[in-house]
């Protein structure tokens, strides 16, 4: 049920947004008609059969030391869809994202309550090795972070450390093709990954992540360090990847959420409750008919 979108329609729907931002005071600007028209292409299924849920949080809470960062978050992330997490800075959206592959623990002194289920199994279970979780849940970071090695070695790194048995050349080509980078780099795979432009680096990092065949791909503001053209390429890529992967993306940019995602989660922190999920639903519904007043305030730019 994935949506195929041509580059031309992408550009048509984007254009008015670039030239006539209507946002009164917000940097990102609120969602516009174009976004919503685009989001309408998304699936209209509201109820998800459980076998179509890849990741689900159940009453999940998290503390950094004594500071609470997430409060009783419950949501279900559907298979082969793009799910966006939006919300103001400090609302816990990155923390929620990093809870799925247990990257939060690397900061140290993290305590959790509740569950995060990956294919029905709690990733915080006693017998679960976070290293295995992280192979199954790929991640792309805000700043492109290729290793200071060749393009080829970058793509192969995860495969090699995880004992990949197969043809390396084929894996490199296939991963780079899926990341829409192959045509630009196929001539010189020995070139350092750091010699690429920022947008290319981010696609290289995506190729590196999908080379280990993850079940979920997490993206933490993957385009916020990129220029608008590179950003559009990443967004197109996310749509294409959604045919084979389940994608969860954190973004500050609401137009981006409206453009690329099928489902959107809106999070918020206030004095009483840190890192709560306010609303979660199909992107089109969340942007056109938000159920919660706070969601409406946020997406229309009336917040604060």
């Amino acid at each position, binding site marked *: 049920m994935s949506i195929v979108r041509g580059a031309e329609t992408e550009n048509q729907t984007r254009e008015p947004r670039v030239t006539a931002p209507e946002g009164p005071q917000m940097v990102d600007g609120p969602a516009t008609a174009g976004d919503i028209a685009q989001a309408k292409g998304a699936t209209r299924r509201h109820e998800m059969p459980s076998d179509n849920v890849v990741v689900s949080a159940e009453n999940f809470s998290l503390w950094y030391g004594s500071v609470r960062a997430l409060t009783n978050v419950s949501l279900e992330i559907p298979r082969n869809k793009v799910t966006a997490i939006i919300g103001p800075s400090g609302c816990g959206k990155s923390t929620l994202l990093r809870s799925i*592959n247990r*990257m939060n623990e*690397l900061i*140290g002194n993290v305590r959790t309550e509740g569950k995060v289920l990956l294919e029905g199994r709690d990733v915080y279970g006693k017998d679960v090795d976070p*290293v*295995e979780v*992280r*192979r*199954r849940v*790929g*991640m792309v*970071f805000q*700043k492109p*972070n*290729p*290793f*200071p*090695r060749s393009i080829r070695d970058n793509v192969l*790194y*995860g495969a090699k*450390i*995880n004992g990949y048995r197969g043809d390396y050349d084929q894996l490199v080509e296939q991963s780079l093709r899926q990341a829409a980078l192959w045509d630009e780099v196929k001539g010189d795979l020995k070139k350092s990954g750091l010699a690429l432009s920022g947008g290319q680096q981010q696609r290289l*990092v995506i190729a*590196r*992540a999908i080379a*280990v065949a993850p079940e979920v791909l997490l993206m933490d503001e993957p385009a916020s360090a990129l220029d608008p053209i590179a950003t559009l390429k990443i967004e197109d890529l996310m749509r294409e990847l959604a045919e084979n992967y389940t994608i969860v993306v954190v973004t500050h940019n609401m137009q981006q959420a409206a453009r690329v995602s099928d489902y959107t989660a809106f999070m918020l922190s206030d004095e009483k409750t840190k890192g709560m999920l306010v609303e979660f639903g199909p992107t089109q519904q969340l942007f056109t008919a938000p159920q919660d007043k706070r969601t409406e305030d946020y997406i229309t730019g009336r917040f604060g």
Partner: protein
Amino acid sequence: MASSTQVAHGGATFRTNLATRRLKGALFVALGLAAVGIGLLTLLTLIIDVVVDAVPWLSWDFITSYPSRFAEESGIRAGLLGTVWLMALTILIALPLGVLSAVYLEEYAGDNRFTRFVQVNIANLAGVPSIVYGLLGLQIFVRMMRLERSLLAGALTMALLILPIIIVASREAIRAVPSSFRDASLALGATKWQTVRNHVLPYAFPGILTGNILAASRAIGETAPLLVIGALAYVATSPSGPLSRFTVLPIQIYNWTSLPQQDFHGLAAAGIVVLLAVLLTMNSIAIYLRQRLSRRY
């Protein structure tokens, strides 16, 4: 050029004083240059003085001969071989210990009271006078471990002496590795060790090597701890293994300068030139390795 006073918002004025500010800057540059000049001049004077004294005595025979009570027949061979042996053993012992400690403290040990305690003490150990290490070495390695007055006892003592420097420098180098590499590696399902082995160590290695150069440079000139553990001033054989008795260049040099005859002072100068040459060779090897390794990663 803007005038020195300008009218700004609300009628307030800026007194830019650009000339004075520039002058202060120029003054600072001059001071810095003078400081560098004093250091360079002193060094140059020392080197010229030593080289002038050393030239008549420097010859192949000087390098291949053992010391003698006749200045003309004396050579530096025993001290040179002793120093090379001692430095090789010291680095062999101190480098793995130091780097492993640094990796553990930076990558594995959590931030708790114990690691902070260890951290403060390592920093303090780097400042302990070297003679104290000599006494420690004498008691532990020479007496308790019965290594006698051997190269190995000397190398272990020297390793203790430079370990804090190596650990501190290696930790700095490891801390300078961008955490984005660690994140990227771990997020791909690498274990901690794979991440350290494939990314942290290669990236930090040039910095670690620099720390080792500094540490080894300190060790090569040390005399006091070796005198305490009983390195000899007069050795007429080459070291044959880690358990041989030994002398080192600085001790040999010190010994010659303390003799009354003028000729031996020339020998001492020649010995200093050899010591400098060894030091420079050692550093060049380390720098070469550093360049090669940093290109490869």
